[in-house]
């Protein structure tokens, strides 16, 4: 996802919708901030992502270790999770479920400590579970009961009086998008509907935090998008912090403010999504054709070259849309202005102008190779606008293709690698706007 705005991970502090909407224009169009140069973009639209760690944490673990007779599920895990939507990424067996169990106060850790909502998990499990919702990975719905009855029962199990339980159930089921079918027994539900009921039972008692274990499991692409939008809304509209586990990195890019990567029970990395998907210091521009300029892209290319820039075609030719995209090095701060003026001067329509970013998966692959190079608190890499999200590592980059180093030929190579994924991301471009824009269906 290219349009994760730098501001979303700060949404706990200020209202995210207004910013989010403006950055995610239609078709991911030109962001008002983006046109005025890097400096102001950083200054007005986003704050230093490093700040997020100084906010109140919803989950904090300190040297958390969990040993079973045969395996060590968690190994001295120290992580702080800020309010917002946080992705917990790891392969199967990485310790995700063990961590959730400990956070719910259900199994005592071998060593170390953890707090959820400021409460110690080893002593306040019951209180924590009163203010936390949990959506399990597996199916957990009895088929001969209706969604309404089930969610009402679960609400009462969390301590809601009968009348409140009924009212909240009706509300919550509507919010997750279940209407008339909620009176039918759940045996007849589709996977998507079941996932919604599972989410509803986690939300029905209005928790301060929900733990969602693989919520998109088994869903088709459309269902997955809907679920991700819903998860996003759980935070933006409902004001509930979310910890969502997944092994699909692409999902987390568009949904999460912060991503925690664990592997083999150890922390690989924890930082804002924006850091993961740092700008690659290259700008993609797409324009329309007009009568005066039948090939708008070529005209713009020529005009930009005249203006002293070096526009390039994306490396991968043949991918849908790639012929109409120009890539620009954004080393100079006035590149945005130059492009805007040039396009306006030619009378072309500006379809989009966007910053290319790293893909989380690239970072993930890189982090796996160098687990020690990423301490818990990423040292404010985003304050320096040019710093890539990963430690530059030419050696590693050479082995798996494009090196995520700043400008020059390297960056175009990276974009070339990213381009095949481009069409998919464009298709999903409209969704964040829906999710972040706070319009309730």
């Amino acid at each position, binding site marked *: 996802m290219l349009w994760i705005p730098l501001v979303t991970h700060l949404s*706990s*502090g200020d*209202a*995210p*919708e*207004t910013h989010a909407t403006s950055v995610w224009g239609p078709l991911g169009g030109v962001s008002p901030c983006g046109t005025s140069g890097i400096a102001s973009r950083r200054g007005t639209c986003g704050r230093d992502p490093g700040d997020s760690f100084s906010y*109140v944490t*919803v989950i904090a673990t300190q040297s958390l270790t969990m040993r079973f007779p045969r395996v060590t599920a968690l190994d001295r895990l120290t992580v702080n999770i800020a*309010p917002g939507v946080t992705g917990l990424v790891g392969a199967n067996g990485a310790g995700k*479920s063990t961590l*959730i*169990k400990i956070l*719910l106060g*259900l*199994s005592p850790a071998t060593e170390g400590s953890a707090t959820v*909502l*400021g409460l110690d998990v080893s002593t306040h499990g*019951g*209180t924590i*579970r*009163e203010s*936390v*919702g*949990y959506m*399990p990975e597996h*199916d*957990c*719905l009895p*088929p*001969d*009961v209706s969604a309404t*009855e089930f969610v009402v*029962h*679960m609400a*009462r*199990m*969390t*301590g*809601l*009086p009968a009348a*409140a339980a009924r009212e*909240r159930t009706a*509300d919550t089921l*509507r*919010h997750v998008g279940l209407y008339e079918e909620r009176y039918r027994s759940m045996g007849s539900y589709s996977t998507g509907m079941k996932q919604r009921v599972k989410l509803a039972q986690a939300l029905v*008692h*209005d928790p*301060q*935090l929900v733990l969602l274990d693989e919520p998109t499991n088994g869903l088709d692409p459309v269902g997955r998008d809907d679920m991700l939008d819903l998860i996003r809304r759980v935070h*933006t*509209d*409902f*004001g*509930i*912090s979310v910890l969502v586990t997944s092994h699909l990195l692409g999902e987390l890019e568009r949904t999460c403010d912060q991503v925690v990567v664990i592997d083999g029970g150890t922390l690989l990395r924890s930082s804002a999504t924006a850091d993961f998907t740092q700008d690659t210091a290259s700008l993609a521009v797409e324009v329309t054709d007009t009568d005066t300029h039948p090939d708008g892209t070529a005209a713009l290319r020529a005009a930009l070259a005249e203006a002293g820039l070096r526009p390039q075609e994306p490396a991968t030719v043949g991918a849908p849309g790639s012929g109409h995209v120009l890539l620009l090095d954004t080393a100079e701060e006035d590149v945005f202005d130059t492009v805007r003026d040039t396009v306006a001067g030619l009378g072309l329509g500006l379809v989009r102008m966007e910053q290319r970013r790293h893909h989380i998966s690239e970072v993930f692959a890189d982090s796996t190779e160098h687990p020690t190079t990423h301490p818990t608190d990423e040292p404010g890499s985003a304050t320096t606008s040019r710093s890539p999200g990963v430690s530059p590592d030419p050696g590693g980059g050479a082995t798996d293709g494009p090196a995520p180093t700043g400008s020059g030929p390297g960056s175009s190579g990276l974009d070339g690698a990213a381009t095949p994924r481009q069409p998919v991301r464009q298709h999903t471009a409209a969704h964040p706007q829906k999710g972040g*824009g*706070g*319009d*309730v*269906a």
Partner: protein
Amino acid sequence: MSPEPSPAAATRGGTDVIHNIGYRKYDGPRLGRSYARRSLFVHSLRGTYGLGRAAKSKVLPMILFAVMCLPALIMVASAVYAGADELPVDYTAYATFLLPVTSIFVAAVAPQVVSLDLRFKTVPLYFSRPIERSDYVAAKFGALIASLIVFTGTPVLILYVGALLGKLDFADQTLGLGQGLVFTVVFALLYGGIAVSLAALTPRRGFGVAAVIAVLTIPYMLVGALQGIAQQQGESDLTTWIGLGSPGTLLDGFQDSVLGGSSNFPGGHQVTGAEGIVYALVIAVLIAGSYALLLRRYRKAGL
């Protein structure tokens, strides 16, 4: 901890369409762990009679309940009509009198109480709520016991009401009722305890039903046969000790010696007071054991 509701959410609503009322926070009371445990108990108790579940779940328990109560009504009606001076059956003997019906009920209902949660993996959802594992076990155990008390206690109450209507001796009948109710509770604890701890071992409902029926009836028949043989051999003492071997004969001997009833042991064999204490102890150990087994079963079950 959680951020303020977004401005967009706050300004929504009002003149908008009905679906667009935005998210509402819950500021009402949260009644906590004991309330949740009680709710689970009530929910499970209702579930044993199929209340709050699909119609077909109600059929079997309701039919069995009717079968259980019908003889009591007939007995009462005939006793009142005939002006008899005592009921045709002891209060304490009624549950054992209809033991097959009760056994089927226990076997059908115990898996309903615990197996469904295991089979559909609802158990982790409960444990992610304020209740602890011990609360879950207590609620489920209690629900089945209460369900059985209702099942076997209702006909006893019918008998009592009928006896009073028939102008039988009040003091006599009330003492009998008291004994009958004590027996009902002990019966429910023993049968329910054994059944629920067996049913919790398997998520498969069918296996649960079969296992409960097997454990409740096979030893009962076996013990009955052995007692018959012992009695024929003239080993009257042995009859008593063999009676410790099945839940059904345990209860029979218990009500014979402690609650002043009469056992169905072959040859009209009586269980003496001292032997009755042994019976009571064995029953207590079995009840405690089945509860401990159930706790142990859920110690590991979880997310």
